[in-house]
């Protein structure tokens, strides 16, 4: 009884709070100062058609580097805690259904293509390295579910991840020497806004981020997958 009263009181308090928030809310009828700057200067300074990408990769590029580092740390901790199947005993797996196997064969290449499309076109259309990488990892997990006995190439994932991470930081440092500062994208020619080969280093950085995030998430899921059999 006392618990129910507490829950009702809590709900009432939250309701009051959120009602005030909704009641006092007024949509801004013009962009604020920072947003105006981004909207007016992105095309000239960065050359991306997608302003969100310009903010994520260039104006706030250091934050993206931090996010990638956090993801790397997570993957490293999971790899440290889950050692995988070390018993050497072949695990017994139930055969997955014919439906799943056939569908995985047809759909997985398309999922990989979509993932690559998302991060290659990150500077033109919505999406980018993180989204594309996550899509690629979900395609890989579909493959693992269709063929539970197969082993994912976790060593290859580690190599791809390390190389793309290093190249990302190296591109950032190249910006210090060749352009305006760390992670400046104008080390490559900016090109025409809207072209695939435009926006300087942004597409290169997003391809690297996509490969890194994809291999990190895929390696993480493959670790969980390989843990399933042993006791």
């Amino acid at each position, binding site marked *: 009884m006392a618990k129910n009263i507490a829950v009702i009181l809590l709900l009432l308090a939250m309701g009051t709070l959120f009602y005030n928030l909704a009641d006092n809310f007024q949509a801004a009828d013009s962009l604020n100062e920072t947003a105006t700057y981004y909207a007016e200067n992105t095309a000239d300074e960065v050359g991306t058609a997608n302003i969100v990408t310009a903010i994520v990769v260039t104006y706030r590029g250091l934050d993206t580097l931090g996010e990638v580092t956090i993801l790397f740390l997570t993957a490293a901790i999971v790899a440290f805690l889950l050692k995988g199947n070390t018993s050497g005993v072949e695990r017994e797996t139930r055969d997955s259904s014919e439906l799943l196997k056939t569908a995985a064969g047809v759909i997985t290449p398309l999922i990989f293509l979509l993932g690559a499309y998302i991060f290659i076109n990150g500077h033109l259309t919505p999406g980018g390295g993180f989204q594309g990488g996550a899509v690629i990892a*979900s395609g890989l997990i579909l493959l693992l579910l269709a063929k539970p006995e197969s082993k994912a190439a976790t060593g290859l994932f580690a190599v791809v991840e390390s190389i793309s991470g290093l190249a990302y930081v190296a591109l950032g440092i190249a910006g210090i020497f060749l352009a305006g500062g760390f992670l400046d994208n104008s080390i490559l020619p900016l090109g025409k806004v809207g072209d695939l080969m435009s926006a300087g280093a942004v597409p290169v950085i997003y391809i690297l981020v996509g490969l890194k995030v994809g291999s990190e998430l895929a390696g993480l899921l493959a670790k969980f997958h390989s843990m399933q059999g042993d006791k």
Partner: protein
Amino acid sequence: MLSNILVIILVLLMLASAITAIQAKELVVSIISAGLVSLLASVLYLMLSAPDVAMTEAAIGSGLSTIIFFYVLNKVRGGENG
């Protein structure tokens, strides 16, 4: 106006699946409904013109984290809440 009605329907569905996730007896049902909350949230993000966030939410929130929950559930099964 029409989009407002759609948003309200989406939010009510999200609330319903969130409550299902808490109240369901079977953990499998809880995991599926928690994934459903993310999926509906990603549609909502798309309607609020944030396609970048919607993509991340759909791929990670409703895809990969649901799979990880299933792997962990399969691993801990046989315990108290089996």
